[in-house]
């Protein structure tokens, strides 16, 4: 079974790309990874279609976790998941975790072959309400 994929969604393309760079350098390339950031006009924001494309690029039969930064990134990610065909929709989860640290932690967990739920749990251990 392939490793779970990781998608990074930020309002800023620089943040998203930088977080992806950290994942690649720290975790390696055994995890499918994609990032997206900014709105179609080149400003800060997120774009549903671009998120769908990022999910496609990071696609794994084991599933995909999405790390988001602020409000709209999460709602647009949920909308992107809704646009997927039903068979893939259930394999994509949005993590409630800080985007940079969450992406590195999720990818580290995923690189060991962990299942989708375990990858999300690891990322969410970082949030204030997560398990210590």
């Amino acid at each position, binding site marked *: 079974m392939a490793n779970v994929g990781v998608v990074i969604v930020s309002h800023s393309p620089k943040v998203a790309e930088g977080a992806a760079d950290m994942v690649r*350098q*720290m*975790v*390696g390339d055994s995890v499918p990874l994609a990032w997206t950031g900014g709105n179609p006009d080149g400003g800060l924001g997120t774009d549903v279609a671009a998120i769908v494309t990022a999910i496609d690029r990071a696609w794994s039969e084991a599933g995909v976790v999405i790390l988001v930064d602020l409000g709209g990134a999460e709602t647009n990610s949920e909308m992107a998941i809704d646009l997927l065909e039903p068979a893939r929709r259930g394999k994509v989860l949005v993590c409630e975790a800080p985007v940079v*640290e969450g992406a*590195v*932690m999720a990818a*580290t*967990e995923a*690189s*060991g*072959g*962990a299942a989708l739920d375990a990858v999300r749990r*690891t990322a969410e*251990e*970082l949030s204030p309400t997560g398990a210590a």
Partner: protein
Amino acid sequence: MLKTSLTGSALITNDVGLHARPSVKLTQLAKRFGAHIEFALDAAGPWVDAKSPVKVMRFKAAKGETLHFRAYGPDAAVALAAILALVERGFAVDGEASPQPPNG
């Protein structure tokens, strides 16, 4: 676990200690084995699960400190040897010339 676990220790020699990148490498290596692997700064614990990315990342250990490991399971011996070797070579993985850049 204490009765059947194998133990070992290794001195941290790289400048940044068990920092961000070394933490990821330790976790990734531990996950390759079926054995339960824990580590601590003191041979009496408290012990941390080496396969938990978040717990390993939160663990602070500097150059000059000794990491104690204990492992149990069918492949505990080979797992322990591999992990001690990783610490002893400054967390450098195969193909890496130097352990980490200064801010690693």
